[in-house]
């Protein structure tokens, strides 16, 4: 990154901030909100909120199977959202985009159907699933459940001391018994951006299906599923300026066509007889019941918003913020960053531990509470990634995370806030 770029914002943050109503509010005793918790869930621009209100106020109806005007309008909006998402991730086929309720459901979907599938994809005794030690619980527990149910084995890649994947034993861990490799693109706790190419290559060499948890990358960098080379990619609306209640599973059509269904019900069927049923073609095969229609519309609006900013610009802006934050936080006395400390291959989240003389480590809960009083919202705890905390021998971390609306001034406020925390608890 050139000096030029660190000074020039890749996006006009002040204008962007005006789109987010919540950024106008104050918290506590009239403190302006400094929202540094976007990795947990991002805020929503007016455009997204209004797209959904407008949908309900003017176009709502159940989708598909209707010949009336509202049903056609709602269907066009819902399926239009699928087109937008497909374009956003450069999916070769819109039917490969399946709406779920969140990333977690998307990952459970894959884990479940691979558990139920027959040869060659199905899991059974002797088969191995590989994950990593930096996965979010939502990419750990579904695989624990599936391997337990199928008698297959769960293995994982470990972490280096500096917060990156330890790939030194990649070829042993991803061995010839491996049928699935499921790995996070960007860690939500460490901020690490993982080198997926090597993992995908090795996994495909042994014939394994590759699942990528893109929950923390889809909101922050250009995501091209064709370049990525994975077989499944999961992400979630609420972290990418979109609404709650919606997520996405992208999967290769050949696989989706062949794998068994997940949830059963209306819309996912072909012909239903009491004795047995046939299933609809994708994407409907994996969309049982009334889907999150308004939420798809909202996600479509979020994708429009991000696309208008340009994902390259978003990535550049956030890289600038992360660089600045690493620099400033690194200079705070008693602050230890958990995870990579260089801005290269670093996502929009930074975890740390704060200590103060005479007391030692201040527990993240206390850090977060005192920051909150100053209007600064960070997340504290294990961030649904307990194995990372265990790996680094820490009970929890304080995490600051960023989005398109984050400013350098907010990083400054955080640093000032941390100094206040130290004064507050200092002996």
């Amino acid at each position, binding site marked *: 990154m050139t000096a030029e770029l660190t000074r020039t914002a890749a996006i006009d943050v002040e204008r962007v901030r005006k789109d987010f109503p919540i950024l106008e509010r104050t918290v506590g005793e009239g403190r302006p909100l400094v929202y540094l918790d976007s990795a947990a869930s991002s805020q929503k621009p007016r455009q997204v909120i209004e797209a959904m209100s407008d949908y309900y106020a003017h176009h709502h109806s159940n989708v598909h199977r209707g010949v009336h005007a509202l049903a056609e309008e709602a269907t066009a909006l819902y399926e239009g959202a699928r087109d937008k998402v497909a374009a956003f991730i450069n999916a070769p086929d819109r039917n490969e985009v399946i709406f779920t309720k969140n990333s977690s459901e998307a990952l459970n979907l894959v884990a479940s159907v691979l558990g139920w599938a027959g040869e060659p994809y199905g899991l059974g005794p002797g088969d191995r699933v590989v994950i990593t030690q930096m996965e979010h619980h939502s990419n750990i527990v579904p695989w624990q459940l599936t391997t337990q149910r199928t008698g297959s084995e769960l293995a994982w890649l470990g972490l280096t001391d500096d917060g990156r994947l330890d790939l030194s034993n990649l070829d042993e861990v991803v061995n010839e018994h491996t049928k699935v490799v499921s790995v996070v693109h960007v860690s939500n706790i460490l901020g690490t951006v993982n080198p997926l190419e090597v993992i995908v290559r090795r996994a495909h060499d042994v014939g394994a299906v590759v699942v990528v948890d893109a929950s923390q990358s889809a909101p922050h960098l250009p995501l091209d599923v064709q370049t990525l080379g994975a077989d499944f990619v999961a992400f979630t609306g609420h972290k990418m300026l979109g609404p709650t209640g919606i997520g996405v599973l992208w999967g290769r059509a050949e696989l989706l066509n062949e794998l068994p269904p997940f949830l059963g019900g209306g819309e996912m069927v072909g012909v239903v007889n009491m004795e047995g049923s046939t299933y609809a073609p994708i994407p409907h095969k994996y969309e049982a019941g009334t889907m999150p229609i308004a939420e798809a519309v909202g996600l479509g609006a979020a994708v429009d918003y991000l696309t208008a900013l340009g994902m390259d610009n978003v990535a550049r802006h956030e890289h600038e913020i992360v660089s600045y934050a690493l620099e400033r936080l690194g200079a705070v006395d008693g602050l230890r960053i958990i995870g990579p400390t260089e801005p290269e291959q670093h996502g929009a989240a930074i975890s740390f531990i704060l200590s103060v003389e005479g007391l030692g480590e201040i527990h993240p809960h206390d850090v977060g509470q005192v920051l909150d009083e100053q209007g600064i919202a960070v997340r504290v705890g294990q961030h649904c990634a307990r194995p990372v905390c265990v790996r680094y021998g820490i009970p929890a971390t304080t995490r600051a995370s960023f989005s398109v609306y984050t400013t350098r001034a907010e990083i400054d406020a955080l640093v000032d806030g941390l100094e206040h925390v130290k004064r507050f*608890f200092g002996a």
Partner: protein
Amino acid sequence: MKLESMYQEIILDHYRSPHHKGLRDGFGAEVHHINPTCGDEVTLRVHLDDESQGEQAIIKDVSYESQGCSISQASASVLTDLVIGKNVAEAFAVHEAFLELMQSKGEAQGDEDVLEDAVAFAGVSKFPARVKCALLSWMALKDATAQALARSTQKETEQ
């Protein structure tokens, strides 16, 4: 203001210099409780003088090792001050009073005669996310005491 109502000086004192901390031998039961939300953990041991006395048994010692935020640490420290030397029934009554205070959403003051230093936690009850921290060691105490008593009954039955 709000913040000071939670972080009373008395809490911070207990946090900085906890009482009765460390695990000691000679105990009737040991439990390990966690708060998965934040990673707080406590290992707590209860030593009763005579389990066969049931709820009349005296709590001779409560020792613990813990990791967690100021609220959970201070709460464990205050707890030991409060219950060591009381009988089980009395200790449970204090627990009840503390539980009530914590669930009061900032409405109650707490009875200083019963709760002593623990009334300082009244402000914590306004912070739903922190109530669990304050209760962690108390839940562990209740559990450990119940186990210690149950074990003695079991022994008697086996005899």
